[in-house]
């Protein structure tokens, strides 16, 4: 509701009243400010066992691995989200009966992968799944969509609105038309206090630079579905497609920020599926939203076509582009100081005091101050709680 995201007419939204919906949400927000309220709502739902197969991934026709993830749905009330489907046999098949097997990765349960397949983009492909209990699921044959190169990953910076990342792309052949984007953000950030000391289990000792927990790299992947289309335009051009908006006070802009944007080209059917998934799962149930509707993918149980299966298998190539933005390029962007962080000096009166303070790990020593030790809570000292202190391989 607070987002200033522009609802571009050609980005699928106007055709589905989404921009209208947003306005309504704004109205609702307005009224809430006047006199309304928003409360948690946890309806009691009869426990219906829904154990639906979920298939996620795409047939990568290019020089990257094909990765497919299988899982099952769980009840909303359950704490875990992931219930991997293990022990299945997956094969990519072409119209001309070529088969490319995938194997289950040992590193991640329910994930199946192949070496780069380098498929012929003029052919159609499908995915065959044989689950551990022998049920066979087949996707429809899908066209291979080759994504055009991303023209530009750009940004608009504004202290009040924040940093808006956008994408420009075009297809001279006018064949792409339907697009989807994913992104991965990485940034440098620091803990509130730089710890020069550490607890080695027995005593407070000096911290080596290898064990530094002051500077870290944070990372997130896209969790919303970003779609765009140029069908309403007379050229296959995408101009300033919004990808992600971050406020200017975000920790992401402490020193250096990077974003990797991946671009997929879709068939109309795939685009419809993603749009339907977005509409059904990203904001629904409000009075001005479209009613939730059945989600139909292109994967079917061979023996029982009525069984719901979640997911849509596409085939194609992916285009990627990474950009870096440093703090110097963002004048006026400031992260407020963490007011929750306090440091205090621990003055040991008995030899047992240090173990008492530091053994649990909740309090971390920072520096010696006279006879005592300046210390603070782990959240304020240890950046690895929210990121990694190992520089990512790609980082420049």
């Amino acid at each position, binding site marked *: 509701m*607070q987002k200033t995201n522009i609802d571009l007419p050609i980005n699928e939204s106007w055709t589905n009243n989404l921009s209208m919906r947003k306005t309504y949400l*704004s*109205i609702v927000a307005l009224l809430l400010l006047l006199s309304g309220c928003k409360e948690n709502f946890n309806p009691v739902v009869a426990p219906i066992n829904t154990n639906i197969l979920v298939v996620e991934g795409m047939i990568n026709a290019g020089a990257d691995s094909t990765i497919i993830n299988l899982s099952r749905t769980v009840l909303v009330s359950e704490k875990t989200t992931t219930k991997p489907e293990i022990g299945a046999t997956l094969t990519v098949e072409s119209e001309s009966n070529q088969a490319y097997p995938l194997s289950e990765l040992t590193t991640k349960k329910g994930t199946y992968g192949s070496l780069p397949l380098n498929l012929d983009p003029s052919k159609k492909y499908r995915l065959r799944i044989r689950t551990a209990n022998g049920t066979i699921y087949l996707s429809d044959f899908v066209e291979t969509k080759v994504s055009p190169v991303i023209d530009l990953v750009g940004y608009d910076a504004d202290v009040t609105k924040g940093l808006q990342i956008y994408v420009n792309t075009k297809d001279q052949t006018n064949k792409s038309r339907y697009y989807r984007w994913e992104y991965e953000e990485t940034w440098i950030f620091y803990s509130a206090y730089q710890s020069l000391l550490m607890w080695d289990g027995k005593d407070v000792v000096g911290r080596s630079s290898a064990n530094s927990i002051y500077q870290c790299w944070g990372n997130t992947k896209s969790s919303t579905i970003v779609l765009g289309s140029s069908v309403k335009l007379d050229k296959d051009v995408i101009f300033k497609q919004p990808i992600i908006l971050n406020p200017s006070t975000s920790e992401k802009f402490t020193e250096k920020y990077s974003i990797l944007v991946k671009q997929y080209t879709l068939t109309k059917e795939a685009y419809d599926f993603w749009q339907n998934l977005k509409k059904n799962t990203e904001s629904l149930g409000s009075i*001005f939203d479209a009613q939730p509707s059945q989600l139909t993918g292109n994967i079917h149980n061979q023996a029982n076509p009525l069984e719901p299966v979640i997911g849509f298998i596409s085939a194609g190539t992916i285009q990627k582009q990474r950009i870096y933005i440093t703090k110097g390029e963002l004048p006026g962007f400031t992260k407020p100081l963490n007011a929750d962080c306090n440091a205090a000096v621990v003055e040991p009166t008995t030899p047992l005091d240090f173990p008492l303070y530091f053994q649990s790990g909740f309090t971390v020593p920072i520096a010696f101050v006279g006879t005592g030790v300046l210390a603070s809570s782990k959240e304020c000292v240890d950046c690895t709680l929210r990121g990694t202190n190992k520089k990512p391989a790609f980082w420049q």
Partner: protein
Amino acid sequence: MRIVLLIIFCLFFSSAVFAQKDKEILYSVDFKQASINEVVKDLEAKSNYHFYYDVLQLDSLRITVSANQLTITNLLNKVFEGTNINFAIHNKNIFLIKGKTIDLDLAQAYYVNKVGKEPVSVKKNDTSYLANEKIQYATTANKLYEIGIKTNDPKSGTALLSGIIREPTTEALVKGASISIENSEIKAISNQDGFYSLNVPLGKHTLFIKAPNKNDANRQIMVYGDGKLNIDLKERVLTLKEVQILANKLSVVKNLEMGVSRLDLKTIKKVPSLFGEPDVLRVVLTLPGVQTVGEASTGFNVRGGSTDQNLILLNDATIYNPSHFFGFFSAFNPDIVKDIQLYKSTIPEKFGGRLSSVLEVNNRDGNKKKITGTAGIGIITSRFSIEGPIDSNKTSFILGGRATYSNWLLKLLPDAYENSKASFYDFNLGINHQFDQNNELSVAGYYSKDNFKLNSDTSYNYSNKNASIKWKHIFNSKLNVSFNLGTDFYDYSIMSDINPVNAYNLKFKINQSNFKSDFNYTLSEKHSLRFGLSAIYYKLNPGEFKPIGSESLVIEDIVQQEQALESAIYLGDEFKVSDNFAINAGLRYSLYNYLGPNTINNYAANLPITEENQISQTSFGKNKPIKTYHGPEIRMSARYNFTDDFSIKAAYNTLRQYIHLLSNTTAISPTDIYKLSDPNIKPQFGNQVSLGLYKNYNSKAIETSIEVYYKKIKDYLDYKSGASLIMNHHIETDIVSTKGKAYGIEFFIKKNAGKLTGWMSYAYSRTMLKMDNELIGEPINRGEYYPANHDKPHAFNFTGNYAFKQRYSLSLNVTYSTGRPITLPIAKYYYAGSERVFYTDRNAYRIPDYFRTDLAFNIEGNHKIDQTFHNSFTLGLYNLTGRKNAYSTYFVKENGVITGYKLSIFANILPFISYNIKF
């Protein structure tokens, strides 16, 4: 006046005495084309009477009469029968006067009452040609009005009495007034145009007239034959305890209508309202059988129908969007509205084109005597009205306007909303001209506009524009007609120009031109007929998508304009079989032509209508009929009275609807579009059977009723998953026709008189839909019945007003209903970087129940008639209990976790105040 009466009394008493003595003398005459001089000469020769008259007045008269052995009075009656000559006998003097009546009537009446004898000395002939010249206006209670041609020998039998009832100061016609005859069952209700007709036995009667907000009145009549009597009813000014609904006392138990609610503005104004602005549509929602999906949505559902199945008429003009400001206000200016009528069961055959209900909103006619006005100030809106005569007393105008000043409210919001704007305004204009008693012309206009832009770069606006002209004509006491010609517009547009490459303007427009004529004909005492014809020509622009500015790459896209002609002819007969049993039989035949120019997509037979199954296109030229739908619509009802205040009624209705609102959101939103039936989208068809029991208690001060109904809907429109409705060139591929059924029982009790007035209703009702078309791949809920969005089984309403004193009253409104159905997420899974949900069957669960109480305190200024300004205050509290009613529930993903939220809009007690002034 009193002296005059006394003199006249003396005059006639003495002549009556004399006349009795004179009775023995009988005369015989034989005149052929005789002049008055010849007649007088002859009679003076035969008797000792002397005649006095003005030769110039009477010299054109030729008399042909033959009489044998008559008294002088009877003879003169016979001689002057069929003329406008009155005579008076005093001693041996006979006076002849042409035309003038010199108020002899009262004396005659008095004489009849006192002496019980036939008046002998007076003759007053209201011959038919005279009656046409001047219709009697019955203004006083004690005068005797004679109806028909007086005969000296009253026969038995009945005569038809008709006329109009009006308010003398403003000359406004009074509808819904009850006219009854003392000590009898004979009653009539004045219609929309203030017109009434009544079959009365010949002879002398007392008429009782009652009407909302008018003083009860009675009139003395002497009926000799068919005739006209217009009645003046004075506005009730000195009391606040008016019994508005008294006029309908008769209607509930004794009329033939079922499921009809009438409310006048005074009633509407007493219902506590949001922000203190009296709201027509919110009051409608308190009636049994009327539901809404959400608190802030003006669309309403009648007996399970969808929101587009209501025909909303403002002075006979169709209003396509009856709301302002996202449904928080209705489009009707409460200062101008006279009354509303909602038909939800028996829909009169003169209406058609919608399945569920007709909501008629009627504006007042302007005051014909003096300039007056009102002004109201509320928190968010202000309004004014002014009315008065134009030149003569025959023409009047009424003008009303409203505007918001809500922008200041938006300014109080945080900076994030700094670009927000929302405003609306509307205007009503009415002009009424009374040519004469039989001809009246009225012109009405309506204009409304809403603009909004909220925290977004996209701006929206929508507008209603209506104009109509109506001519009412009374042919005679049995036949009257009204003709109506009008044009109605509704359009909206959405514009965004922030991104130059994508800058666009999207427009939707509908225009209808309509003509209708409605005739009322009183065939006999037992049959009154209604008939007429109507035609509507639709022109619909489903969408126009255009670039703005030179940089915009948007391709201009226009969805083909659609045209159609909907015509209908109808005939209805209200047949009083006996005193207790009456039938209303109506038939409407509607004909719909979808017209060119247009290009129609043809789809393969017996396959789902999808883009893949489109086989060809056919183009049609201008005004070529592309597709015709037609069929009869039956409107039947019957009533049987067990006793005077207890009756049973039954009704059966079928209806057809050719225009559809396409909306896949739960509530009406301003961007929903209308669609005309075409070769691929069939008209909706509905039928309803209902049965009701009606009982009045306590001398009709308390009305009760129970109604049950069962309703079926065919070819109701639902949407495929992910249907896109705007700028869709083949919308039929996204639409699925659905079946619906609705049934329910409604209990209603209303108290019309006393310090406490108001009504209370409870309804149990269900509305179920079913998508069992075999051509749909994945029907909703596997093709089983599922509850509609507005299915709320239990609904209770109480609306009451307690008048402590004449100037102070307290109003209370209590509403309870079962929560609206929703589709809940049941399972979750991880996909595309986020947790996502899988939903249950459509509408398998419900949001929490709805309960709200509102309170208002009304203070009227003093009621001295002569003061220039009258003012009133309303203070109140909306949602007295502060219950956090769920406006909606939704599930969103926040930081990758699914959270359910319940959103309440008016979650606290909301105080309001409004100030109104009348001058």
